[in-house]
């Protein structure tokens, strides 16, 4: 220790003639040990730091950086770009395309449509598909395809060369009026074109379907259908939303009513009408946009409100559940009148423009990812890059404003992991963990709450089973058992602690679960009979005459108890079938005959599921892991109670149980609590038992006969498949971090309690 320091001044060294080598070695070893020791301690803490560092990006917002805008001729109404944003183009009102190299600013190409004698009256660009639609003055639509070809110049640098192909104009609308707007969409059956025209002061929508059928040779045959009117019942709409999936259509009227239509046969049928801001002073819908996936609509109002409406199954008055539009979120208030909603590609984010500000929101969580200056009064068109890495907006002056987006976890927020979230398509907000599924449009759900629930549930059943056994055993072994037995029992319990959890899990899942299944009631009866049998035995024994009692040496009771308790348990086991017949008889679904089957009874009576790998089995087997730990620590605390206290109590005439109950246990209570907490910590982190002995479904029900999914099991099952750096990967790290902190805090509290106990013993 430091108090005895080997101080040696040079004079001393000369006197005792220490070899310089010895001193040097001493110095060096001292440094080495210091370095190594501090290093090891730091490494241990570095682990926690690393885990936290891994989850940090989840809660960082988006980084959006403005890039130098590109200048195009004024009057541009639409734009498009290649996959890398290298050669963007704008489209003027007359249909002319101007291409510009974004790095050098050089003009690359200018292309004009050849539609004379008609004029171009409407333009729409779909940057993602490389498609520009031109609406002509006679109601026809011309499709212009923009593609990019890779070319290498003399120095070997790669550049994209635009190629423009215009198709023959298709007659869609009424020949007597110019197109005011055009849309294109695509579904499994073919491609849909929609034009908007004003005829005699009334708004008209006309559609045309190009049926596409794959021939035998893989060639696509295109057969144009007949133009058909769309939503003829509404003539005064202001805004039209045509999703690119062509399965629905939304019209927004000036008074704030949204009318929705669904694809039906050859046209569209009216589905539903709603007014998002019906209660507001100004009920107008100022802007609207469909979110990626086309089943959610973001609408903004005149007072800066932003609401999300989505298609989800709703219970109708007639008891049927049908997919209808309903409000699922109410977002934060925008800093002004909502002027535009622009959806991102590939995720559920959208950009809202209001009061000169741009706000990047996530639709599902409602989180604000980023806020910045718009830099323009209004936008003609806004488009995100395909990988959600870029953003470009065309303003009224022909400037193409550009931003770089860095947002790796757009779906992430505190609410994602700990809050109730109303996911698209769900009938209400819920805590859900569902990390993977087949389709692209599927939203991964990362709520840790069901996992916490499963963890607590498993821990609860484990402790329910383990604590009574461990604590009573600790009391008996420390206070009553003969010392020579204690020397055998304690190592025996330690052996139990060392049993690999994979072995316990295997036995629970593959041996115990099927075994318990048919005779659950018998087993429960036998377990329930144990305690009364033991208490009765003790009572009966204490009533016996003293000379009989002397035959049983103190500390040997348990040997006498074994046959009696075993007999009682056996009887209870035999009674099990009768109990089941008396209490749990139900009608068999298949045959209609009454059968005595608890499993069926449970299903029919409670409506809950019954799995053979259930919480009771897990709790029982986890007991093997928890009992020895709780036992060892509690036993230590109890047997370290100073003997003077025990002797004093006994000398005053208290019986041995009175001494234990009123003196020993109160003295050691903090040690016992600490033992329980450490057992709790062990049960929380148990992995293999839960993985193997439950169904691992992330359900939130207290049903003791169903399984669960715990934090630890979830990590073990999913982490090998999670892609590094992905939200899923980091969400699992978040789970690990929670586990770490949870157990660390519990164990620290337990340790503090134990230290307090030690001090108390010192005082006593």
């Amino acid at each position, binding site marked *: 220790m430091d108090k005895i320091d080997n101080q040696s001044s040079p004079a001393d060294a000369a006197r005792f003639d220490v070899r310089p080598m010895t001193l040097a070695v001493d110095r060096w070893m001292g440094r080495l040990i210091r370095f190594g020791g501090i290093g090891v301690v730091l490494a241990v803490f570095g682990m926690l730091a690393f885990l936290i560092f891994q989850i940090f990006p989840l809660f960082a917002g988006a980084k959006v950086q403005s890039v130098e805008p590109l200048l195009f001729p004024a009057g541009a109404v639409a734009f498009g770009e290649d996959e890398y944003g290298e050669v963007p183009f704008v489209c003027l009102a007359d249909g002319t395309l101007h291409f510009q190299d974004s790095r050098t600013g050089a003009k690359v190409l200018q292309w004009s449509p050849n539609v004379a004698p008609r004029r171009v009256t409407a333009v729409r660009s779909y940057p993602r598909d490389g498609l520009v639609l031109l609406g002509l003055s006679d109601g026809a639509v011309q499709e212009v395809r923009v593609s990019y070809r890779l070319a290498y110049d003399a120095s070997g640098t790669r550049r994209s060369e635009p190629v423009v192909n215009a198709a023959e104009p298709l007659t869609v609308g009424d020949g007597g009026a110019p197109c005011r707007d055009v849309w294109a969409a695509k579904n499994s059956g073919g491609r849909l074109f929609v034009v908007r025209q004003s005829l005699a002061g009334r708004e008209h929508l006309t559609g045309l379907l190009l049926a596409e059928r794959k021939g035998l040779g893989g060639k696509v045959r295109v057969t144009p259908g007949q133009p058909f009117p769309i939503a003829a019942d509404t003539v005064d709409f202001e805004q039209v939303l045509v999703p690119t999936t062509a399965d629905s259509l939304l019209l927004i009227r000036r008074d704030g009513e949204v009318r929705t239509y669904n694809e039906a046969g050859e046209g569209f049928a009216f589905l539903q009408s709603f007014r998002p801001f019906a209660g507001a002073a100004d009920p107008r819908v100022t802007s609207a946009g469909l979110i990626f996936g086309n089943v959610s609509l973001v609408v903004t109002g005149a007072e800066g409100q932003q609401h999300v409406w989505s298609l989800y199954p709703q219970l109708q008055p007639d008891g049927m559940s049908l997919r209808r539009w309903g409000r699922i979120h109410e977002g934060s208030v925008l800093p002004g009148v909502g002027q535009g909603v622009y959806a991102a590609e590939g995720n559920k984010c959208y950009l809202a423009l209001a009061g000169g500000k741009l706000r990047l929101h996530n639709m599902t969580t409602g989180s604000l990812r980023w806020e910045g200056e718009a830099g323009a009064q209004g936008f003609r068109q806004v488009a995100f890059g395909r990988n959600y890495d870029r953003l470009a907006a065309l303003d009224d002056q022909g400037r193409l404003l550009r931003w770089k987006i860095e947002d790796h976890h757009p779906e992430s927020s505190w609410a994602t992991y700990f809050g109730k979230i109303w996911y698209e398509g769900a009938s209400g907000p819920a805590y859900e963990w569902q990390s993977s599924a087949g389709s692209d449009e599927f939203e991964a759900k990362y709520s840790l709450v069901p996992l916490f629930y499963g963890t607590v549930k498993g821990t609860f059943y484990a402790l329910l089973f383990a604590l009574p056994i461990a604590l009573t055993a600790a009391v008996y072994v420390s206070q009553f058992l003969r010392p020579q037995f204690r020397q055998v029992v304690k190592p025996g319990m330690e052996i139990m602690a060392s049993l690999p959890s994979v072995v316990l899990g295997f036995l629970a899942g593959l041996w115990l679960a099927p075994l318990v299944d048919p005779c659950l009631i018998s087993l429960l009866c036998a377990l329930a009979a144990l305690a009364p049998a033991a208490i009765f035995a003790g009572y009966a024994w204490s009533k016996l005459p003293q000379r009989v009692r002397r035959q049983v040496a103190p500390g040997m009771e348990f040997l006498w*108890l074994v046959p009696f308790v075993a007999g009682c348990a056996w009887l209870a086991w035999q009674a099990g079938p009768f109990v089941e017949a008396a209490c749990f008889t139900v009608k068999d679904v298949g045959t209609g005959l009454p059968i005595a089957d608890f499993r069926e009874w449970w299903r029919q009576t409670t409506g809950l599921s019954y799995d053979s790998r259930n919480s009771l089995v897990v709790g029982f087997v986890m007991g093997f892991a928890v009992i020895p730990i709780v036992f060892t620590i509690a036993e230590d605390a109890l047997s370290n109670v100073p003997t003077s206290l025990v002797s004093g109590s006994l000398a005053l005439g208290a019986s041995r149980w009175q001494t234990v109950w009123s003196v020993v246990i109160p003295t050691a209570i903090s040690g016992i609590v600490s033992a329980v907490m450490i057992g709790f910590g062990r049960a929380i982190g148990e*992995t293999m038992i839960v993985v193997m002995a439950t169904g691992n479904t992330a359900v939130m029900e207290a049903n003791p006969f169903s399984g669960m999914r715990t934090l630890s099991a979830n990590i073990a099952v999913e982490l090998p498949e999670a892609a590094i750096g992905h939200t899923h990967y980091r969400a699992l790290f978040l789970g690990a971090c929670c586990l770490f902190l949870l157990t660390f805090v519990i164990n620290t509290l337990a340790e503090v309690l134990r230290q307090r106990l030690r001090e108390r013993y010192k005082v006593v």
Partner: protein
Amino acid sequence: MALPDQDSATPRGEPWVWFSSLGLIVGLVMVLGLLGLVLMNGLSVFWAPPVPVVRLDDGTSLIGQLAQRRIRPGSPASAPRYERQYQVGLRELNGHSYVWVDESRVRAEEFPADILGLERMENGPAFVRPVRLTRADGRVVEAADPAFAEALAAEVAAGAGVRERLTEINRGRIGEVNAAMEQTRVDLRRAEDQKTPTEAIRRAMTALEARYATLGSEANQIKATGETSKLLAREAGGREVVVPMAQVVREWFPNRLGFADRLGLFFRRLGEFIFGEPREANTEGGLMPAIFGTLVMTVFMSLLVTPFGVIAAIYLREYAQQGSLLRIVRISVNNLAGVPSIVFGVFGLGFFVYVLGGSIDQLFFSDQLKYNNNTPVFGTGGLLWCSLTLALMTLPVVIVATEEALAAVPRGMREASLATGASKWQTIREILLPASAPGILTGVILAMARGAGEVAPLMLVGVVKLAPTLPLDGTAPFLHLDRKFMHLGFHVYDLGFQSPDSDAARPMVFATTLLLIVLVVCLNLGAITIRNRLRARYKTASF
């Protein structure tokens, strides 16, 4: 403790004393029951019981070894019906190895002496009645011939010899050629990429390919020599089956064996289990690679954890400034032992595998990455990362044990050493470490026991179901830190939980479980024994 009351009054609370003893009884029953269960199920795997011909009520019959008996699922608990599972083998014929038979259907069980049990390389075991054996040299031995058993044994031994030679060629020599070809391919790609001459490499490749072809035909020749030996046999239904003797690992007549024979067979099977290679998707054969993998990993882990743990403990106990900061550090280190093992696995994957391993690959194996389809070397799970992860996990165990041992060294010894003029390091080296060595050893053994039984973190950082190579072998650099390996605990998980044929896997899981428990319990008993001796020594040494 308390003496029974001397007066005749009933002592208060006596029922509760008895109640508290119940906890002990249940706890002990649980431990003993579990150990007994695993022991019985694990050992019975190697026991060869008599095999009956079971005649059923519909006139059919089967030959099979009784595997288990249970209450029929779905039968009411009030009137349970039992069913038996027989291992009938001959999967190539039946499509499965096990059948369930309702007990009420069994009419009779006979034990004819001529039933032959065969363990085979493929399609599971077989229980048949032999008809005749065609030996490798063309001689035919009828089953009724008294020399039949001897001839059969000779053919099985010959088949084993053939398999051994094949393994030597396939795994040994062809394996070497394969490794060389792999390297040459990388060299070739690099040469092509860097536009250096490829002639020599191509020539080497051609030579290797030629060698590969020669070895392949040699293997085929050896294989052909074994193929002439065949056994014709009948299954219970009378259908004839031909069993190539080259496929037979072991043969026995289950109804002819005496107790001593059965015991001998038991130990031979046990020996194969421990020293053999796995067969049939790990459900048959031995566990040598898993045992070896577990041992190598555990030993390597303890080599890593011991010096660091001991140095950290010496620092904390002897060098660090004692104070409240140190107390916090000490509590934190202690508490790390209670952090779930899976968290260490997560850290191991995130830091060791992806960050450290990824950087090592970038720095030293960039060629390998570039020219070998981005196959990571250290950037994926492996022995090194498993050992490091478990070393980190067991570090608190060693630190705590060492600190306790150091604290228990009587102060007098320390002072005496310093008083004689020894330096601090000399005192540590000559007095403290030797005196606390048993305590440190206890900690290390406990750490090893924990490491050997741990599965959850290993699943994340490099344990696999079936590893083609061992982590320690005769090719340089002998200890392959980057290799994935097999592990007993993971074997239990994989066989018990992921196996497609859970019936076939069941005996093997129990046997593996037994082995794992024996290993862990032995390590723990060792630690406990050392600790008890240590306590006894300090009792006399202090004061």
